[in-house]
């Protein structure tokens, strides 16, 4: 007796457990999750703009909100994720912007290094101009 043949196409189950199959996939997901912190923090700043526009009292209330423990924890996490985004983004710049000079390509380390240098200088300048130190 002939066996029944299944003519339906094979549907692979869609799961998210693949993330934990390799440390590289976990790092990839950590990088991608930085969007929640950068996006969430940006929305918090939009709220800050609303409070700034509403006057000195509303702005003081916003600064008070920033000092809550939840906000401090969120800012520490957001800072770590944002820095991880920056490092991974600049490490990819040699792939995204390969530079050729004559026959040879500019070394990867020089392209990424230039970005890291500009990042450091810009960050220090912003912190200084804002009066952080």
């Amino acid at each position, binding site marked *: 007796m002939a066996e029944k043949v299944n003519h339906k196409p094979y549907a692979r189950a*869609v*799961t*998210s457990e693949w*993330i934990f199959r390799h440390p590289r996939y976990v790092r990839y*997901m950590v990088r*991608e*999750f*930085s*969007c*929640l912190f*950068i*996006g969430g*923090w*940006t*929305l918090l*700043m*939009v709220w800050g*703009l*609303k409070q*700034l*526009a*509403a006057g*000195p009292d509303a*702005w*003081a209330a916003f*600064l008070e909100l*920033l*000092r809550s423990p939840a*906000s*401090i924890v969120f*800012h*520490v996490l*957001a*800072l770590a994720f*944002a*820095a991880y*985004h*920056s490092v991974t*983004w*600049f490490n990819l710049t040699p792939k995204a912007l390969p530079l050729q000079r004559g026959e040879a390509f500019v070394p990867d380390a020089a392209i990424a290094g230039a970005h890291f240098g*500009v*990042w450091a200088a*810009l*960050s220090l300048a*912003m*912190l200084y*101009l*804002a*009066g*952080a130190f």
Partner: protein
Amino acid sequence: MAVSNKPLVWGPFAAGGTLTAFLAPALILLMLLAALGHTPDLLAYDRLHAFMGHWLAKLAVAGTVFLALWSAAHRLRITCYDLGIRADTVVATIVYAGALAGTGAAVLYLTRI
């Protein structure tokens, strides 16, 4: 030939990713300092209100908010797909609409300053 909207969504993603890579850590650190009670001078109401009153600052902030929200939205969309959520059109509509709504709100508040 089908018209692709890929460059349209990917362009602001790349620009926003680059901009946030350069700016986000320092800006978040400034707010963290304020959260810890060491408020940077610029965040005093009078100074910040005067600074944000200039049209150039408004333009820069509006542009930065748009690019940061758009790149976060795009990444969130791809992450949802990676996590097994295959309703891409629905996800894309929600996240991009959210980014545009956030930008719209920022522009509205900026005009009131």
